[in-house]
């Protein structure tokens, strides 16, 4: 971590990325001034630390961290007995989890070893030179990268219009040029844009940016700037993750069967659904009536089949472990509905999904907190 006490010195020395040697004398004078100032004003320094904002890392510091990371990676590979050249990040994670096993539940609190780029947040180098003149011409707008981006975008729009005029002049203007495929991606969110530009922008700015992009895309011939546009879009994850429908196989006698698992609240279950024609059910090798003497559990098992009207058609062979009576029944119900998917048409699968048969129940036992008697129950309040 950056040595905070030498921050003021470092901020001067480090942020001058392009310091030339001729400025050394100036810097040494400045540093002497700063050093002297530092010895005298120690209380003011403390206040400055708080008001300075998040810690700033110098470029050299980051570089040093990167080197250390690489060396550490090679050491780790040697320790695990693997090839140092082809040691990927996944291997690193695996090795760290092996060497430092942690029982903490919060994944972010566990020991990790990642590339410094991912750990240290991106920060801007100092924007002005030794003479105090800023490098960028838009520095005094306050949001230089944002406005430079807008300018660039607008210049691209003008380019496209010029191109259009040229095509019209030649007589080759055509409306139906190749369009950029936008279905599988979405625009960057404001937060992501801030991360990209390494500066904060307001929501108005963000809206303006999106409007300009849309205007760019509305023009024909926008495929010239396809790469530029796609840089500012993120791929959409498969929005509705299609339920993995278990594939029905055929066993020796030609009977179609499908297997699937289900889970509810520490119970795990696995069901083999056979398309025999009898309605026999076996749970953990025992009779179903014997394993679930309570009517409610049997109703839970019955629900998927009864909902689809396929009660007497299937033969179930279930295994279940863990949990209690009710959670085992719930786990089995989920497993049955999943196994049933492979025997149903699309519309019926949709009705099952809407009935809530395919949703795994996320309710788990809430943890007991210290200072309380249970998860929610507090100790009896005594007035005195």
């Amino acid at each position, binding site marked *: 971590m950056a040595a905070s006490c030498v921050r003021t010195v470092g901020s001067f020395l480090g942020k001058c990325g392009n310091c030339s040697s001729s400025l050394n004398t100036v810097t040494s004078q400045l540093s002497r001034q700063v050093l002297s100032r530092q010895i005298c004003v120690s209380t003011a320094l403390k206040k400055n630390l708080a008001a300075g904002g998040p810690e700033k890392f110098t470029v050299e510091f980051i570089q040093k961290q990167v080197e250390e990371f690489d060396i550490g990676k090679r050491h780790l590979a040697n320790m695990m007995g693997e090839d140092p050249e082809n040691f990927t990040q996944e291997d690193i994670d695996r090795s760290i989890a092996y060497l430092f096993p942690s029982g903490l539940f919060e994944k972010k609190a566990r020991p990790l070893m990642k590339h410094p780029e991912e750990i240290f947040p991106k920060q801007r180098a100092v924007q002005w030179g030794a003479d105090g003149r800023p490098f960028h011409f838009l520095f005094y707008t306050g949001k230089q990268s944002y406005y430079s981006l807008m300018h660039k975008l607008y210049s691209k729009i003008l380019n496209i219009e010029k191109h259009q005029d040229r095509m019209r002049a030649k007589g080759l203007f055509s409306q139906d040029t190749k369009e950029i495929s936008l279905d599988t991606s979405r625009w960057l969110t404001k937060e992501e844009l801030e991360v990209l530009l390494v500066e904060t922008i307001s929501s108005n700015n963000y809206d303006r940016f999106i409007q300009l992009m849309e205007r760019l895309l509305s023009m024909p011939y926008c495929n010239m700037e396809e790469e530029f546009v796609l840089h500012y879009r993120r791929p959409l994850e498969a929005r509705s993750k299609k339920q993995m429908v278990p594939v029905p196989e055929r066993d020796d006698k030609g009977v179609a069967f499908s297997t699937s698992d289900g889970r509810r609240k520490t119970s795990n279950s696995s069901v083999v659904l056979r398309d025999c024609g009898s*309605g026999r*059910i076996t749970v953990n090798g*025992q*009779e*179903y*009536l*014997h394993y679930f003497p309570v*009517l409610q559990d*049997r*109703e839970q098992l*019955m629900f998927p*089949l*009864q909902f689809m*009207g396929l*009660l*007497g058609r299937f033969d179930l062979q279930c295994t279940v472990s863990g949990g209690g009576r009710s959670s085992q029944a719930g786990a089995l119900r989920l497993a049955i509905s999943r196994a049933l998917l492979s025997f149903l048409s699309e519309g019926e699968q949709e009705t099952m999904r809407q009935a809530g048969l395919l949703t795994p129940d996320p309710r788990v036992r809430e943890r007991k907190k210290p200072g309380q008697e249970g998860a929610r129950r507090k100790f009896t309040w005594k007035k005195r």
Partner: protein
Amino acid sequence: NNLKPLTSASASFQACQSEKHLGQFYTLPSAHFRPLFPHGLPYRYQQQVKTFNEACFMVRPPALEVISYLKKADYSKPALRYLFYGVKGSGKTMSLCHAVHFCYTQGWVVLHIPDAHLWVKNCKELLPSSYNSARFDQPLQATTWLRNFRTTNEHLLSQIKTKRRYVWTKRESTDEGRPLGELVNQGISRVKSSSDVVGALMKDLRLQSSQPGADFRLVVAVDGVNALWGRSTIKKENKSVDLEELTLIHNLKKLMKNDWTGGAIITTLSQTGSLYTPKSAYLPQELLGETGFDSMDPFIPVSVPNYSEKEFESAYLYYLDRKWLQHPQSRTEDGKKELSFLSSKNPSMLDRICGFL
């Protein structure tokens, strides 16, 4: 309509017992019902009889099998032992009662012990036996049983005579040649000696039916026979009583031995009332234990399964017919499938589920 109203003539009753009528219900005439089953039917079934005002049995293969054996058996040979076994609620007691009813219509003497488990647990009073001081008596259970026995076999008790002389106390005795009814009345009125009366009755009936000239046959029907070889929870001065020390059990075990002729022994296993047996045990070997199995050996095991498709449908139609199923959805095809699934075609489960529909 699969219900056949039955007249009291035993001939038409016989006609109902063939295999053609598998799965159909037949009604018991109320004249038969009151004397035959003062005890011995499952509690839920008794309630159902009271609700529907009639007693209907379903003709099922296990009972039919036993009845056919009873018809064909040779009664000069030692008594055959039949054992009904099956999972809980599959209809063992009902099959037993069906067979007993058949014997009753044939005019046999019915020795029906409703539940042998009742004699080995929850005993309020325990007296040392007057006959044999090492054993213990259970006057209450014995008197209730004698009363029921009298109700069942009233018409026959006056005809059968005792063969020996029994001395109860210094002043009371029953002579040879007195009708059995007197013996039974003696037991009921003198509570202290009732267990000994039971023992004497059993011995007498056994001896008499073995004789070649006997004009009656004896059927011994015991429900929950595995109680005879299990353990008991009766405590005498904080020491649990061994089964051999109970007079009733001792006499019953003597009856169970097939050293007498001219009758049959029909029994069922029962896990529900049994002590110290796991819930999943239903096979004869598990429930009878080693000693029980050896003493019952050889016997004819008859398995009582859950309802088959046809039987289930018949039971369902019976409930519909009696307007027991009120829910509108229970009348549909889907409702029937649901019932079949939920009860897993177990008779008692079906009865319980239909109870609140």
